[in-house]
């Protein structure tokens, strides 16, 4: 039997999106869906529905109508004639395929530039991916009441400021898409930086596969959208190889490609090829390509693609410190650690004082150049800033190897 959990995971976003856009009310959609789930939990064990998603949708719709009626009663004290209750046959005859797919509209609502940037991803994860407030709070390292308030404020803003529930017109497309992607990228970066995948951040890494698949399906002619979906797949494909038996992080060049998820890599390759065919290059396609050249590797016996990585970084945005740090890693392999250290030392160290990758890379280069004391001190700084135990273990090991 299909469980409520499974139905909620597979169809929840679609149901909430359909309700939210039909009634133009996020709170109403959320409450009605929660009520429908509660009823399902009570009713399904004794009478499992033929089509669980359709059952949830039909029930949630009726809950919305009930709630609207109650609001009217409260505000005007003169109830409308009640809506006819859907008969059992009607619910039986309904079909999950009839739930309109309004997730894109809902994503655009949640990621509207008028919504505070720090609330956009959280709201998207809540409404489109169905994560609980508790899960989102954990993922963003925010206390649950603070996250609850952030979501409430964002929903209020959307309702009161008249944020449109329509997909914006083509002239607004670049600005609006940029807001959507930057929102989702930040969210995914947080989920991905936790190599263990079991920690606080990783709660929604898997959800991002689903969300980007939806976006790629809904926006098949947006190359940057396809590229972002590809990046998430490449990165998730490597998850099984990111930790060693002791739980320490394994850097990309030392991961065993045999452990990588080939079917995800194939999906990513196909997406990236589709993006290339649209012939409109962009930064996200470049980023996806960087992941792609790594994922070509089939075994540790094959040399790592450092030259290709370096060439791609040469095309990337040079004022992004993260790009320059990663480029220096490749440069060290191609041209030696001294040249790479010059690059790293040219960065604004004050700005990057709390940026762990900066210290980790610098420590490694110093160690390779035999500058032992400096390397030890910088490794310590990186260890203090490590985002999780996997990174910490790896850095401690590297530090202990400094001779």
């Amino acid at each position, binding site marked *: 039997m299909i469980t409520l959990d499974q139905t909620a995971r597979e169809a929840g976003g679609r149901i909430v999106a359909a309700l939210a856009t039909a009634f133009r009310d996020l709170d109403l959609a959320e409450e009605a869906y929660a009520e429908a789930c509660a009823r399902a939990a009570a009713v399904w064990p004794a009478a499992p529905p033929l089509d669980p998603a359709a059952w949830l949708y039909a029930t949630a719709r009726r809950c919305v109508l009930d709630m609207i009626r109650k609001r009217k009663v409260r505000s005007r004290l003169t109830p409308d004639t009640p809506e006819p209750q859907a008969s059992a046959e009607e619910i039986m005859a309904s079909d999950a395929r009839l739930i309109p797919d309004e997730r894109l509209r809902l994503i655009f609502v949640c990621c*509207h530039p*008028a919504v505070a940037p720090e609330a956009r991803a959280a709201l998207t994860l809540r409404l489109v991916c169905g994560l609980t407030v508790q899960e989102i709070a954990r993922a963003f390292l925010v206390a649950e009441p603070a996250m609850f308030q952030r979501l409430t404020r964002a929903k209020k803003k959307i309702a*009161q*400021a*008249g*944020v*449109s529930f*329509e997909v*914006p017109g083509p002239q*607004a497309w670049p600005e609006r898409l940029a807001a959507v992607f930057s929102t989702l990228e930040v969210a995914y970066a947080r989920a991905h930086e936790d190599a263990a995948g079991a920690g606080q951040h990783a709660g929604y890494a898997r959800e991002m596969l689903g969300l980007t698949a939806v976006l790629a399906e809904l926006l098949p002619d947006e190359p940057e959208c396809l590229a972002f979906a590809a990046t998430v797949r490449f990165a998730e494909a490597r998850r099984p190889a990111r930790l060693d038996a002791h739980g320490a992080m394994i850097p990309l060049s030392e991961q065993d490609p045999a452990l990588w998820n080939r079917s995800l890599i194939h999906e990513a390759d196909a997406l990236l090829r589709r993006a290339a065919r649209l012939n409109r290059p962009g930064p996200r396609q470049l980023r996806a390509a960087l992941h792609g050249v790594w994922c070509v590797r089939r075994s540790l016996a094959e040399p790592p693609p450092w030259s290709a990585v370096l060439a791609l970084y040469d095309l990337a945005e040079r004022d992004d410190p993260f790009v320059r740090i990663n480029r220096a890693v490749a440069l060290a392999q191609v041209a030696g650690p001294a040249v790479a250290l010059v690059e790293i030392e040219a960065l604004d160290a004050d700005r990057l004082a709390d940026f762990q990758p900066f210290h980790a890379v610098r420590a490694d280069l110093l160690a390779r150049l035999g500058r032992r004391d400096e390397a030890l001190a910088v490794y310590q700084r990186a260890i203090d800033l490590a985002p999780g135990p996997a990174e910490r273990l790896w850095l401690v090991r590297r530090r202990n190897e400094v001779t």
Partner: protein
Amino acid sequence: MQYALLIYENEDLYRTDAGRSMDEIITAHRALAGELAQQGILLGGQGLKTADTATTVRKSDGQHALHDGPYAEAREQLGGFYLIEVSDLDAALAIAKRIPLAGDGAVEVRPMIEEG
């Protein structure tokens, strides 16, 4: 939806020749207001005299106190407003972007409480 578009600018731009000339801006406002009125979007609006002409009445503990000057001393001051009725926030934001400014400035888009 009804919105107030509140225009905040550094008034010095109008006192000196640093920005576009006052006449030029007024002409641009008239053109925009005319267009919005023709489309049935414009509910009202007005330019305001400079903030140094303002008097603020503040009520505190039941007492009224007057002070010479605007509500908040800031580099940018409320210089005028449009009241419009459009379908949604995006439409209001699009009009806000078209409001003529002498130089740098800001337009706050604020939904109005509607009757009924």
